[in-house]
């Protein structure tokens, strides 16, 4: 196959924000997750935990709690506002001020008719959920001290509220507090500090479970308001609780990074009476576990260390299957790096700014395994700060490197770059229609900008030195309301392909300015698409790791794709747990497809036989040890390179050198604040 010069880039200082809250919708199997910067992410647990949607955050928006009501998603935060999200257009739909000071918690009743929030001023406020909005209904009896956590009894008659030093039970109808349960403070120095009831859960058998800042998980009888049992689980805080749907299992997240499971079982064999018994402890985080979700089969946790961890419960899933493997989602499932192939430039997207870098140069030659002397160091050319508090949703750099575009939830901005003496100019007059851009993409000759807009449509804008002109809008015939999350054009400028979260892939003929075809819909969401520069084949990789190649000319799957489907992909390929986020092609050899996920990049050589189920998939080491003439007998189409870890982008420059952008997890971890102190032996 040959040698490659690789630019190994580690200067993309991407740092995800801490996970602040999550909510799991068991009907749609979607997990909503919100980060400290206010960014919202939606993961589809039914489709390989694929990160379907992202709504960027905003400066100063601190979301504290999330709540699904049917398909609708609400959040509330310390800015005192309740927000409903528009998950089709990926933006906040509206925001309502609750007038109770910072909001700590949000919850809904089981029927989905009422929303309640707990405020700093000690009120629990009820909002009626209407079709298009929410409307304030009333306050419950006001308490002294903030309401930190809330839980509605499934019957809807009682509400438990976690406060400072106590738990209150309200009658939901009268709004009066009926019980007051005092929560003991910690011992020693923390005796003088108020204990915060960070989380409460009201079970259908009128048991209330609370987690507090003194490290206790307490079980209360909600009818009598008496304490049943105390479990001291940590020296620090118990920050969050989550109860399984059947109320047989409960998880508590602590500041030590542990998740402690309790199960409602009889404590000894052949004892009839069941009680909450501490069963398992998971330690998958280095820092505070701030958010938890208890799905039917797994414990989902996230916190300060920014990683989302899905830990299947081994008694609920089949052992030693893919389902039982733990997943850590550390990097986003979409590309934050854009590579201008012709110019050798890299665009890095941060939440609030963009950076343009030029890769370094070296004129040496070396043996495989060598590092070449760097003649010219990589250079940061531009740092562009986002305007207005909105964070960046999407960005693109034209292949020539002269145009830069980015979008936020409210606007699209376009800049013109010059490099001889570096300058950046904002293109001031943008067409009116170009106000929304979930995805942005330039044509390969840099004359057009494509921006995906509402209902999977794409707006086409022509660029030249003088002006920026709206050309037309491409619309799919399916009428899907979902946003486009992948957008790509062909090298020859003829084709444009879009993929949306309904798993639809539409291909437009840019010459005829109309829809060319729709690729047959596959059940799993596409995670990367690309059009081959010479053969005009569309390569699609899905969240379930399947690869398809579709001929745009013939409007059918190619021979190679059929062969691949017939033979099936290698089991080790299917078992990988991070999605392929980028596909590109080799200019030298048209039979080569280059794709990557978080832990490897792979060159698929279509001219070679596919690996059979018994052959070694990761065979590079074996091939290396074989003499040259024997290699060909043992090689197969999937050339997988695992030299690089935590890969965010793999791209091929015009000079045939590869750019691999890595973001080592260790580097990210080192940027986290120190975790809570834990006594270790001999320290």
């Amino acid at each position, binding site marked *: *196959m*040959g*040698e*490659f*010069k*690789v*630019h*190994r*880039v*580690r*200067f993309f200082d991407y740092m995800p924000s801490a996970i602040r809250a999550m909510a799991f919708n068991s009907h749609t199997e979607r997990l909503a997750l919100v980060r400290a910067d206010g960014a919202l992410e939606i993961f589809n647990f039914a489709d390989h935990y694929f990160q379907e949607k992202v709504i960027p955050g905003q400066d100063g928006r601190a979301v504290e709690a999330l709540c699904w009501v049917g398909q609708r998603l609400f959040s509330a935060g310390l800015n005192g506002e309740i927000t409903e999200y528009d998950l089709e257009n990926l933006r906040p739909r509206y925001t309502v001020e609750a007038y109770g000071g910072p909001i700590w918690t949000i919850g809904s009743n089981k029927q989905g008719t009422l929303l309640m929030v707990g405020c700093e001023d000690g009120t629990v406020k009820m909002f009626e959920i209407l079709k298009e909005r929410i409307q304030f209904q009333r306050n419950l009896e006001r308490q002294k001290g903030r309401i930190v956590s809330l839980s509605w009894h499934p019957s809807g008659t009682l509400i438990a509220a976690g406060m400072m030093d106590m738990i209150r039970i309200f009658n939901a109808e009268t709004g009066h507090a009926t019980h007051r349960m005092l929560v003991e403070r910690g011992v020693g120095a923390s005796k003088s500090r108020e204990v915060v009831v960070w989380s409460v859960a009201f079970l259908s058998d009128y048991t209330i479970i609370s987690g507090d800042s003194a490290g206790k998980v307490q079980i209360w009888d909600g009818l009598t308001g008496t304490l049943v049992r105390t479990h001291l689980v940590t020296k620090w805080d118990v920050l969050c609780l989550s109860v399984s749907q059947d109320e047989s299992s409960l998880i508590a997240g602590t500041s030590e990074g542990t998740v402690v499971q309790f199960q409602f079982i009889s404590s000894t064999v*052949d004892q009839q009476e069941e009680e909450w018994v501490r069963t398992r402890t998971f330690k998958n985080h280095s820092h505070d576990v701030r958010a938890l979700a208890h799905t039917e089969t797994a414990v989902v946790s996230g916190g300060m260390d920014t990683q989302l961890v899905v830990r299947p419960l081994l008694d609920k899933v089949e052992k030693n299957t893919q389902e039982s493997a733990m997943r850590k989602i550390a990097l986003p499932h979409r590309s934050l790096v854009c590579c201008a192939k012709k110019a050798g430039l890299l665009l890095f997207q941060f939440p609030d700014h963009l950076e343009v870098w030029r890769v*370094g140069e*070296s004129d040496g030659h*070396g*043996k*495989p*395994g*060598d*590092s*070449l002397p*760097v003649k010219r*160091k*990589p250079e940061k050319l531009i740092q562009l700060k986002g305007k207005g508090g909105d964070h960046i949703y999407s960005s693109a750099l034209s292949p020539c490197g002269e145009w830069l575009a980015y979008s936020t939830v409210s606007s699209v901005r376009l800049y013109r770059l010059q490099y001889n003496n570096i300058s950046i100019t904002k293109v001031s007059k943008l067409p009116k229609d170009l106000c929304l851009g979930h995805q942005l993409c330039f044509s390969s000759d840099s004359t057009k900008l494509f921006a995906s807009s509402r209902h999977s449509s794409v707006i086409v804008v022509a660029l030249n030195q003088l002006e920026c002109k709206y050309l037309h809008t491409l619309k799919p015939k399916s009428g899907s309301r979902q946003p486009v999350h992948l957008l790509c054009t062909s090298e020859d400028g003829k084709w444009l392909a879009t993929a949306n979260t309904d798993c639809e892939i539409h291909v437009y003929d840019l010459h005829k300015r109309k829809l060319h075809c729709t690729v047959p819909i596959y059940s799993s969401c596409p995670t990367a698409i690309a059009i081959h520069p010479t053969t005009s084949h569309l390569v699609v990789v899905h969240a379930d790791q399947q690869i398809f190649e579709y001929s745009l000319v013939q409007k059918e799957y190619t021979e190679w794709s059929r062969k691949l489907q017939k033979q099936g992909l290698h089991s080790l390929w299917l078992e990988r747990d991070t999605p392929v986020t980028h596909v590109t092609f080799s200019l030298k050899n048209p039979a080569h497809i280059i794709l990557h996920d978080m832990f490897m990049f792979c*060159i698929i050589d279509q001219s070679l036989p596919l690996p059979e189920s018994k052959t070694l998939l990761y065979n*590079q080491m074996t*091939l*290396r040890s074989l003499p040259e003439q024997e*290699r060909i007998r043992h*090689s197969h189409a999937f*050339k997988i*390179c695992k*030299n690089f870890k935590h890969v965010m982008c793999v791209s091929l420059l015009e000079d045939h*050198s590869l750019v691999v952008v890595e973001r080592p997890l260790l580097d990210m971890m080192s940027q986290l604040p120190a975790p809570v102190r834990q006594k270790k032996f001999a320290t």
Partner: protein
Amino acid sequence: MAALYEGYTLCGLVPGQTLTNSGIQGIEAERDSDHVVVTDSTRSVTLYKVSDQKPLSSWTVKQGQTLTCPAVYNSQTEEYVVVSDNKVIRIWKDEDILLDKAFKATVSSDVWRVHCLPGGEPVVLFQRGAVRLLDSLLSAPQQPIEEVLAQEEAIRWSTNIVADSQQFVIFTTEQKGDSFLYLHRLNPNTLQRYRLEREEPGLSPLSFSASYRDKHICLLYLYPNGHVYQSVVSVRGLGGDEGAQALPLPRSLLLGLPVGEGLLEAASAQLLDEAHVAVVGVPHPSAGAGKDFLCIWNTNFQTLQAGKEMAGKIYGQLWTFSNKLFIPHGKTLSVIPYECPKSSLASALGKLKQAKTEGELKQMSCVPSWNNILHGDKAQPSRPAETRKTVSNFIKTKYLNFSVQTAPVEEVQREVEGLLSRADIQDLQPLVGQLASMLVSRSLADPAFYTPSTLAQLVHTQSLCHSVCPDLVLLALERRDFFLCQLCLQFFPDIPEAVTCACLKAFIRVVIKTGEEDKEKSSTPPEPICPVGLHKAVLLNEVLLTAYSDTFLLPHLKDLSSQHVVLFLQYLQFLYLKYSQDASPQMHGLRSPSLTQIMDWVCMVLDAHFTVLVMTPEAKGLLVNLHSFVKSQVRLVSELGKIEGSLQELNKMKVKKDVGQYSIEIIELF
């Protein structure tokens, strides 16, 4: 290991006229673990503070009246309850001085016992088997009492137990040689009757003991032939058909205690915990036929854990409250504190033997008794069959036993050889033990009789262990049969530290006698020369290889004289030097101690005798040498510590190779 501690006298006894009666009718716990109520067999009830060994108060009924059941203490009401003249229930408080002025109630039927558990309600058991709660009985004292037992059926023993907040009255009866167990549950009342399996004709249980664990009531009973059985009754399954017929009660043989000559007469077995049983009135296996012993047996390993001779007559009475045994003997009532730590194989064996070669491991694992005993609980169902077989063997070999006890040496040898040549030697395991202990006791009794080869053969079967015939090793020592000693040390997994030490002492003494010349020769040696002869070295090695626990060995080691200690340390030093020079310690022969074993022994001997050694001039050089060993060990460890640091550096170096922020690399794909 369970242990019996030094006892003390609680009070004197006034034995009854017949001398078979201790004069104590019963002992019951009072308000806490330190108070007991003692009821004598005639007229008085006395409250004792046990740790002070003194009576706090005493109550007596009038002349002419007698107490017919032990007084109990009702901790809920803080009242005492007793029955006089079978029908009069008396209740009084601590502050009442005269019993006659206290509350009295006469009931319509004869009372057998009043039982009361701490925190529970008193229960009255009538002689005819009816059960009433005291309160409900007193509400109508003259209420009719039904007859539960058949004619000629009489209660022998009773107790009550609280299981899962359910109160049970348990009692056993006897009717025409058959024994029955009754389980009476209160609230709701149910009664279940069980028939005990018959032992040899004419034998009925001597004592009972019951305990509750894991939802089961566990009944332990001792027969005059020394067999201790255990029966387990589930509390769950109770209450079906109302005792219409007696269910057979399955049993399992827990222990076969040595009985000596004749049957046991006054003996008692009490459960202490799930693995330990206290037995009184049964001979100590190594102390001849005398029956005045209090022993603790481990039922899991069937080993004798502790034993104590009790002066004077044993009445077969035994009570246990909060880790104290109360035992009337002679003219005193003694209190003996005991301790039964959780038994495990490790604690039963002491320090595990180290540095075993594979062959040795195999040997160990084929000591059949051990495995059987350990997994005996699981193999419960096959248990009765096994016992039946041993019984048949027992009959078959009655004749052999007889010959062993009387025949001359040659004949005994022939007989035993014939027996051991049989194929099913594994099944004969109990018999081997019996034979060995008979031979040992005969040898002890008759100084002219000794069968070294036969005993060696028996030991070689690996069916023996120390607790089966505890005198074997001491006998061998006495007869200076060191070969047998060696065999025992090698094959017995459970030699007590005291015996190990006795062996050590004997071996060293021999060494001194014969090794004198060696020592003179070895003055100022150019290289280490063994301070003892080869033969003795082998024996000492065997001692070094035995299992032990430091705490138990240390006190016995202190008995060695300083001269012996010096010699022993010299030998250990020699071994140490030899080992630190030789790369392959296996060269010394198969059974040689490991370096760690040697160091452990050096440390222990030094611990035991350090002050003496410091004062002994001839030990000076030795101590200096040992000190240098320690120094060298410390140096070695600190060097290793340094290496650890550099090894960790190596580990880090691998990461160090890591690229920085940017690099241009060449990779090759194949």
